[in-house]
């Protein structure tokens, strides 16, 4: 693509990242969440692929690193679920504690991010996984169609 497109895509990527992270972090108080935020970030990766070409992006987004991020996101999710097994699997043990422990008032309220117990953590984990997984999938498809293979 032309230089204008590349420059604009470069600048826009920052905003896409910020917006995606916002959607992930606020997943438990506003519409959105891990999958949606991760998909937004992956769409930013799509923008970069369109602007720079898949061969160029392949050099900076290593498949191995994406795989590590994806696995650790999934691992974080399941470990948080396992952490509640003292009572019950998936038990929200963080409610009332120091981390994300606030209990929001029932009914309409202005929204407080520091609530929700384990749910923000799980959103973050899902966000990591979806971000890495979708980016890897999109990159792999783009490389496929241009005749290259993802590195093993």
């Amino acid at each position, binding site marked *: 693509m032309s230089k204008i497109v590349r420059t604009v895509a470069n600048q826009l990527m920052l905003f896409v990242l910020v917006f995606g992270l916002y959607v992930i972090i606020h997943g438990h*108080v506003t*519409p959105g969440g891990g999958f949606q935020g991760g998909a937004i970030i992956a769409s930013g990766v799509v923008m970069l692929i369109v602007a720079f070409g898949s061969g160029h992006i392949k050099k900076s987004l290593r498949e191995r690193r994406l795989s590590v991020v994806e696995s650790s996101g999934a691992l974080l999710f399941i470990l948080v679920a396992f952490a509640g097994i003292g009572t019950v699997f998936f038990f929200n043990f963080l409610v009332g504690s120091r981390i994300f422990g606030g209990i*929001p008032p029932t009914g*309409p*309220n202005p929204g407080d991010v520091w609530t929700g117990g384990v749910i923000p953590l799980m959103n973050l984990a899902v966000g990591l996984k979806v971000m890495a997984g*979708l980016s890897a999938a999109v990159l792999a*498809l783009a490389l496929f*169609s241009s005749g290259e293979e993802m590195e093993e």
Partner: protein
Amino acid sequence: MTETLSGNFPLVAAVVLMGIGLYILIFRRNLIKIVMGITILSSSVNLFLVTLGYRAGGIAPIYTDAPEGPMVLPVVQALTLTNIVIAVATSALILSLVIRIYRHTGSLDSKKSRRMKG
């Protein structure tokens, strides 16, 4: 839900979409179009689910800056989101398989690219 045609309109649309999806899956031999057919089928089920969850006068169950009023139990919305996530994974996988099939056989026609029969 009102018992008028306009109240049932989304349901009719879901059924029509399902018919279109099945039509594509049956009569279109292009592999990419088969992927489209599956996606349309999935959308029709999503539409059907979301329509079931509509309650006249209810508000979305988001407490942040919410107006006063009865809130909707968001079960079907959760189901729809799950289905969307699954549909994304499915279509990504099918597309990668289609690309591989095209590389091996040089054809996107489900009849010409077929190796196994009988």
